[in-house]
């Protein structure tokens, strides 16, 4: 049988095209290992907590939904796959607050707990979501569609898991995102050291010179969209205190709290002595005002006193400020627009939660110093200064920018 050149070429072309079409795409994630024994596992180090009404981040979002975000694994390098700890518990603690002006109790009315399985060969980890109310645990391991709740590996579209738990559907994301925090860390250290008499007195750098230390890094992020009704659970509470913890295995079959974080800059900004910081990390907020934590509080007040002098004036009552910031919880009054400086209560505490782009450093420094102070770093950065500027936030949940 004879074949014309044209037919032969056509068949060959079709075959080549089919082969190209059938070739599977190869997505290779990478796993970063630092080449030495990691004593303090970075996977269990918390960096930031955000709590906000979703509609204040995205006007198109549903009324009444809140977004909780907990970031960990500081200084994650670009293009490296990092994992959540498979032995730790990542937890949001929530107090239903009746009176927005009340002192935080540090009582965990609700705990949202996240535990992670070993990664599969695509770098995905299965997630178990546990809701604890009044000591009763409800565990969810599958989405509404019956699939596993999964993390988002590097170089993948975000996996948004709809998780039915406790009578509500929560939306859960877990994976790498760009670190949204922004601060001229090094200059903050210099300013703090100068204020504490440990170094020369310096202020912050000009906007065109200030350096955003976290630019270019990623973090492991857990974000969860929660209907307010789920948090209220029939109580009618519109205000909630939120803090995050990481608990690790204690070697005796149980868990112990290893890290705690709520407001930015409170523990690592005000507490200088490492063992005080460790003590602070190991206690719940309800003990922040206890006699046992007095030395920690005294150090925070001393640092506050020193920072107050950054503007050359002793014009802040450190005890009043300590009262406004301690116990360390992130309070959110859901009847008000979210934002770190959007509202305060009668005690001077910030009660607007925290949005990803809030300039928490400037807000906190302003409160501590008693007059406007800025490290001159912002989320979007200063035009012409390459040492600043994060990627734009995503328009939809989980909102944080794609990882570097």
């Amino acid at each position, binding site marked *: *049988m*004879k*074949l014309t050149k044209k037919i*032969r070429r056509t*068949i*060959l072309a079709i*075959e*080549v095209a*089919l*082969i190209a079409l*059938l*070739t*599977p795409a*190869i997505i*290779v994630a*990478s*796993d*970063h*290992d*630092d*080449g*030495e*024994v*990691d*004593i*303090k*596992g970075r*996977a269990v180090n918390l960096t930031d907590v955000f709590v906000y009404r979703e509609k204040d981040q995205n006007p198109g979002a549903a009324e009444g939904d809140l977004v909780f975000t907990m970031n960990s694994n500081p*200084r994650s*390098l*670009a*293009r490296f*796959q*990092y*994992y959540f700890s*498979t*032995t730790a518990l990542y937890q949001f603690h929530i107090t239903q607050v009746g009176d927005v002006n009340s002192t935080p109790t540090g009582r965990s009315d609700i705990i949202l707990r996240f535990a992670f399985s*070993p*990664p*599969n*060969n695509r*770098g995905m980890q299965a997630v178990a979501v546990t809701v604890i109310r009044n000591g009763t645990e409800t565990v969810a391991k599958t989405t509404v569609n019956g699939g596993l709740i999964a993390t988002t590996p590097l170089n993948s579209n975000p996996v948004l898991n709809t998780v039915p738990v406790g009578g509500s559907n929560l939306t859960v994301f877990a994976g790498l995102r760009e670190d949204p925090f922004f601060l001229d860390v*090094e200059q903050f*250290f*210099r300013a*703090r*050291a100068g204020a504490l008499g*440990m*170094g020369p007195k310096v202020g912050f750098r000009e906007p065109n010179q200030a*350096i955003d230390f976290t630019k*270019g890094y990623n973090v492991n992020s857990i974000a969860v969209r929660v209907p307010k009704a789920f948090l209220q659970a029939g109580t009618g509470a519109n205000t909630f205190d939120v803090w995050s913890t990481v608990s*690790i*295995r*204690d*070697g005796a079959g149980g868990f112990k709290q*290893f890290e705690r974080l709520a407001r930015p800059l409170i523990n690592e900004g005000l507490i200088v002595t*490492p*063992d005080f910081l*460790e003590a602070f990390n190991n206690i719940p907020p309800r003990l922040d005002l206890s006699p046992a934590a007095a030395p920690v509080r005294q150090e925070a007040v001393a640092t506050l006193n020193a920072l107050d002098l950054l503007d050359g004036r002793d014009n802040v009552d450190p005890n009043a400020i300590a009262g406004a910031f301690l116990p360390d919880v992130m309070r959110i009054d859901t009847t008000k627009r979210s934002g770190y400086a959007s509202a305060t209560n009668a005690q001077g505490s910030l009660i607007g939660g925290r949005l990803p782009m809030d300039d928490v450093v400037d807000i906190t420094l302003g409160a501590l110093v008693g007059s406007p102070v800025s490290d001159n770093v912002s989320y979007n950065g200063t035009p012409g200064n390459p*040492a600043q500027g994060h990627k734009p936030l995503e328009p939809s949940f989980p909102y944080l920018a794609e990882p570097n």
Partner: protein
Amino acid sequence: MKTKTKPEIKSDIFSWWLLIVVPLVGMVVVNLPPNLRFISDKLYNNSPANLDASYRYHFSESLRNNPNKKEAIQQEIAFYQQRLAVDSRSGLNRAALAGSYLKMARATGEGGWFLLAEQAAQRSIADLPFDNKGALLVLARIAEARHDFATALRFAKQVGFDNEEAIALSVTSHLAMGKVSEANVAAEALVKRIPNLGSLTLRALVRESQGRDAEVLQDYRQAMVAEEPGEVAGSARARSLLGRFYARRGQFVQAKALFLEALRLVPRYPLALIYLADLETRQGNYREAEGYYSKVSAYSGGVETVFDRIVDRGMARVKDLQGDAIESRRLRDKAEAGLRQEQVSGSGGFGHRRDLASLLLEKGRSQDVTEALALMQEEVKIRRDAVTLDTLAWALSAAGEWQKADRVMAEIVRSGIRDAGMFYRAGAIARTLGKDAESRAYFQKSKEIDPSFDDRARQALGLGSYEF
């Protein structure tokens, strides 16, 4: 006619051939990568058959995604260099760069990276003299690598002994100084703080130096329960150290399985390769031993590393055991030249005095013994761990100073360490001094610790054979 039809037939045959072969080749090409991945996954998923189930790596599925470690650290270095190009006075970024250099030094064994790490850390501290724990810890680790433990501990103290890395440094430095009680206190504090793979491995090392064997195994098991994905090097290191523990007790099957498991995690891991080579030597598998030693050198790509002398000495020992005295001597001379070069060049001065002394004692010439003893008398001023004291006792006995050697061995025995070679040496020294009952007890202890401790093992340790 014929001349016309032949090309047509050929052309048609060629066309059919193309039409058959192209899809076949295409299918192979299409299916090769996933199949290769499947095959590699199968390999990655297979721990050595003899490995105790509790020592198996839990995260095999993620192993395939591991990048080449050197390339990963190189990327890290490039990242921090880029940041420093924007802000050359950034103490924190330079400290991070110093940390990356140190990782590279550890990963490759190339001394130049240590020096780069040291310079970067020093400059970092000059730029940011406070809140700069990262740079201080790098300097502490470099001081420790130089066996300047006092300086290492001074830097760690500056960081604060409530910092996990500083506590870890306190464990390793005190262990090296022979201060086992202090090391133990630090290790307990570290595990109490964070019972993870790293801290439990360190405590296991401390307990091993105290002869608390059951607790050592308990710690390693707990460490492997606590290990995390993404800390593959730590997982490989823990298994290598545990493998060495088993090897020292004559449990060669488990030891080898652990070394192979470590190599499954980090395929070119020098520590595991060297331990494997030593193990094969002990078992008389000389070709296998040479193969593993060769891999250590091959993987360094011809660049000088801290492993070179270990490999040369190991190979020399193999040649000795094979009866090839000429090649053995050549390799020892090569190792000696390298160690002497390091002593004089000051290329980091990473404390290889003990290695040189051991090498000289292996050579066994009287003029070498004098030098070896002098080297060890200097070394024990800064380092008094059991291995260092054992080398000193070796030098003392080689120099005929048996009483002093006996006293040194008594110090080792008091520490609680369980090491067949050390007890055998203690027995040999005691016997020379006419303390027969004591000697017998030592030899018995040696056998009890490692029933397979034989002539080959003794030869490797420079010990004679004593019959009773």
